[in-house]
C-alpha cells in the first residue's frame, strides 16, 4: 500500500485529530511561509512609494554591498565567536546544574534551588545590562572593588575587547542557566528508578551512576537541543549585544545584526540591504543545521531530520 493511500485512510479514520492540526498549519502557512515572498526585496532596490512589485530589480547588488564591507570578515568572525562560545557554555552548564539538582535529596531544597536559579531569566535585557554595567564597572562597580580589595589590578570587563565575549556569554549564562536546566531536570526525573536500583545493587557509585545512567539517558535530548541551536548560530541576540556595545569594545562587539541595523536604520535606511543580510544568515543557518544533523547522525545515531 502506498504511503499516500495509507495517509488517506488514516485521515478518514482519525479526522477529528487532523482537524486539530488546522490552526497550527494555518499559523505556519500565514506567518512563516507567506512572508517568505518578502525575500524578493533582497534583490530589489526597495522604495515604499514604488511599492513591493514595482521597485527596480538589482540582482545581487545588496549582497555584494555586504561582502564589500571593510568589516565583513570581522563581523562574521565576531558573530561566530559569540554564537559558538554561547552555544558551548550554555549547553554544558545547564546540564551540570540539572545533574546536580537531580542529586539533591530534599525536595524542598531542590525546588528552592530551581526557583532561585531560573528567576533571573525574567529580568528584562535592558535592566540586566544596566545591572551588569554597574556591577562590572571600573568606576566603583562591586566586582572590581572585590578584585582590587584582593590586591589585584582592576579588570575592565565592559571595555576590554579581549574580555567582551566572556562577559557577554557568562552574563547570559547567569540569566539563563536555571531556565535551560529545567528541561534536563524533567528528563532526568523520567529515568526509570529500576536502572538506578539495579546499578546500586551491583555496587555502582553515585558518580558512576551519573556518568553511565543519567548522562546517556538525556543524550538524545542534548543532541536535539544542540542541533536546533545550530540553526540559530547566525542569529545572535541583537538586543543584548547592542546594549553592551561601546566604542571600547566595538571591534569585537560589532556583529551581523548590529551592523545590519546600522545600515538599515541609522546611516542610510536601506530595507533591501537588511533583507539581503537576513537571507544570507538564513542560508548559513540552514547549512549549519543540516551539517550538525549529519554529524550527530553519524556519531550518535541521534538526528532530527
Amino acid at each position, binding site marked *: 500500500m502506498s504511503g499516500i493511500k495509507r495517509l488517506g485512510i488514516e485521515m478518514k479514520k482519525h479526522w477529528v485529530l487532523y482537524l486539530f492540526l488546522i490552526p497550527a498549519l494555518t499559523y505556519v502557512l500565514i506567518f512563516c511561509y507567506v*512572508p517568505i515572498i518578502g525575500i524578493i526585496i533582497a534583490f530589489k532596490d526597495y522604495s*515604499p512609494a514604488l511599492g513591493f512589485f514595482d521597485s527596480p530589480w538589482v540582482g545581487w*547588488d545588496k549582497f555584494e554591498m555586504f561582502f564589500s564591507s571593510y568589516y565583513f570578515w570581522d563581523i562574521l568572525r565576531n558573530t561566530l565567536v559569540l554564537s559558538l562560545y554561547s552555544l558551548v557554555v550554555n549547553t554544558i552548564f545547564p546540564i551540570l546544574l540539572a545533574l546536580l539538582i537531580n542529586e539533591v535529596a530534599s525536595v524542598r531544597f531542590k525546588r528552592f534551588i530551581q526557583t532561585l536559579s531560573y528567576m533571573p531569566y525574567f529580568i528584562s535585557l535592558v535592566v540586566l545590562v544596566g545591572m551588569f554595567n554597574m556591577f562590572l*564597572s571600573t*568606576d566603583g562597580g562591586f566586582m572590581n572593588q572585590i578584585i582590587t580589595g584582593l590586591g589585584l589590578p582592576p579588570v575592565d570587563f*565592559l571595555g576590554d575587547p579581549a574580555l567582551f565575549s566572556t562577559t557577554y556569554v557568562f552574563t547570559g549564562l547567569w540569566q539563563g542557566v536555571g531556565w535551560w536546566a529545567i528541561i534536563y531536570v524533567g528528563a532526568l526525573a523520567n529515568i526509570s528508578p529500576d536502572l538506578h536500583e539495579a546499578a546500586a545493587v551491583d555496587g555502582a557509585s553515585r558518580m558512576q551512576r551519573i556518568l553511565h545512567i543519567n548522562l546517556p539517558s538525556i543524550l538524545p535530548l542534548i543532541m536535539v537541543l544542540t542541533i536546533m541551536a545550530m540553526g540559530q548560530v547566525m*542569529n545572535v541576540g541583537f538586543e543584548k549585544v547592542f546594549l553592551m556595545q*561601546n*566604542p571600547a569594545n566595538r571591534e569585537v562587539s560589532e556583529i551581523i545584526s548590529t551592523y545590519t541595523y546600522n545600515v538599515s536604520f541609522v546611516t542610510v535606511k*536601506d530595507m533591501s540591504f537588511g533583507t539581503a543580510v537576513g537571507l544570507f544568515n538564513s542560508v548559513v543557518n540552514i547549512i549549519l543545521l543540516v551539517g550538525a544533523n549529519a554529524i550527530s547522525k553519524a556519531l550518535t545515531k541521534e538526528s532530527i531530520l
Partner: protein
Amino acid sequence: MQNSKRLVLLSLLTVANLASCGGNNGAAYDPNNFLETGDQIVKEKINLTFFAPLHPLHHKDGWNEMKLFKKMEEKTNIHINWQYGSISSYDELRSAQWESKNKPDAFFLWNPIQEVSYYGERGLVHDLTEDIEKYAPNYNAVVAAHEGYDELQRFDDKIYSFLSINDVPRDQTFKQFINKKWLDNLGLSMPTTVEEYAKVLKAFKENDPNGNGIPDEVPLSSAKLNQTRNFLMSAFGFVSTGLEVNGAGKVVYVPETDNYRAYLEYAAKLYKDGLLDNSTFLIDDAGLSAKGDLLGSFDGAAAYLVAGMANDADYVALPPLTSSMNQKKMWLGFNSTVSPSAILVPKSSPYHREIVRWMDFLYSQEGIQLQAFGEEGIDFTWKDEAKTSFTFNVPDNMSIEEFRGTLTPGVGLGQVGYWSKDFVLKEDNEYTGRINKNVEDAGYMDCLKIPMPELVFTNEERNGKAIIETDLEIYASVFEQKVITGKVELDDETWAEHLSSLEKIKVSKLKEITQAAYDRRVK
C-alpha cells in the same frame, strides 16, 4: 527575530490599509467650493485625511482636541481626519502609507528631504510652486525675511513642501557648559584658548573648587564624547568630525586632516592627565547626570538636564576656543532646523490649493502663537502693553510639556510650521531665559557653521555610500577611542596607518559622492 519583524510589518500594513478606507477619496472634488482669500478656505465644510507622527505627550483624545487645530477648523472650515503613526516607528509606518492604495490627502510633518525630492521628481506629489506663490502670503513673507531659505525650499526651482522652520538661536546648536561658580571660587577667568581651557580644568582637578576638601571634582566629562568632540574639534579648525565642507566648497573628511590629529593629541593629553573623565567612553547620559554638580564642564542642550535644576545657575556656556592651529572662532550649527519637511500632498488628492492655504495659517502671527504657546490671553498672557514678554499659564496640576501637549503637536516633534524667535524668545521663564542668555553671551550665533547642508542622493549614490558610511562610523569611533585612551600612541607611523585604513574603507569614494550631491544642492 526576522519573522517577528515581518509579522509586525505585515500587520501594520493591514491596519494601515483598513484605516485609510475611511478617507475622503470617495466624494467628487468641487473646485468652486474653494475660496481664494479670507480666513475661511472652503464654503462647504470638507474633510481631509492627514497622516502625521504621534508622540506620547500629545493630547490623549487626538490632535483635533488640541487648541491649535480646534482654532484652525473654526477658521478654515476644513476638518482633518488625522491618521497617526507612532514616532517610535514613524519611518516604517509612513512608508506603509505611501504604499497603500488610499493615500491620505497629505503627509504632515517629518518628511525626510530624501523623500521630498524623490517623490517630487517622480511626480508622485503635487508641485506646490504656483499655489504657494498665489495662496501663501504669510509663508512667503517669512521665507523672504530670511536669507537662504528660498534655496532651501527648492528642488530644481520647484517647491514640493513648506519649510518647517526653527530660527530660535538656542535650538541651532549644542552648548558646552562650564562651572562658573568654580571659576569664581578659584579666581579664574573664562578660557579662550585650548591651553587656557586645559589650565582651568587642571585647576578644577587640583584646587578643590567646591571647597569640600575631597578631590571629587570631575573637570570634563561626556557620554561617549557626544558633542564634546565637536566642541574640542572646533578649536582646531573644523566644527564636526565627519564630512564637512571647507571654505573653498570642497568636501573634507575631517579625520583625514592634521586638524583632527591635533584634536586627538589634545584630547588624549586631557585624558592622560585625568582632566577628561576616564569613564567617558563607558557612560551614557544617565551616567553623566549621576555626576551632577561634581562636573566642571560638559556638553548638553541645557545645564539642568545634566547637572540638575538646583545647579542650573552655576553653569554658563563656554565661548568657542581657539588654538595655535586655528585663530578663527567657530561653532557647530545643526542642519535640520530649517528643512522642507512640513507637508507633502500626494498626486491622488485634488485638494492642493486648500492644503496650501491651510498650511499658510501656520506662518501667520496667530498661527505662530497657537503652535507654540496656545491662545493669547488664555494660555499665555502678555506682561506689558508693548508685548515684549509673556508668561505661559501652565495649570498647577500639569507639567509644561503635558500642557503644551494639549495645545500643539510641537511638543515632542520639534517645530510644527514655524517656531519663531520673534515670539518664542519673549517667553518669561527662568530656565529657557538662562539658556537664551548663555547662547547670546557665548556668541555661538556669530560663528555658527553648518558642516554640511541636508543633501539629496540618487539611489545609485546611496547604495555606493551605504557601506562606506557604516564602516567609517565604526572605524572612526574605535580609532578615536583608542587614541584618546592611550591604547594607540599617535605618531607618524600610526597616523600613516590610520590614513591607509581610511583609504581601504574607500573614503575618497564617499567624498566624491558627497561632493557631487553638494554641488547639485548648492548651485
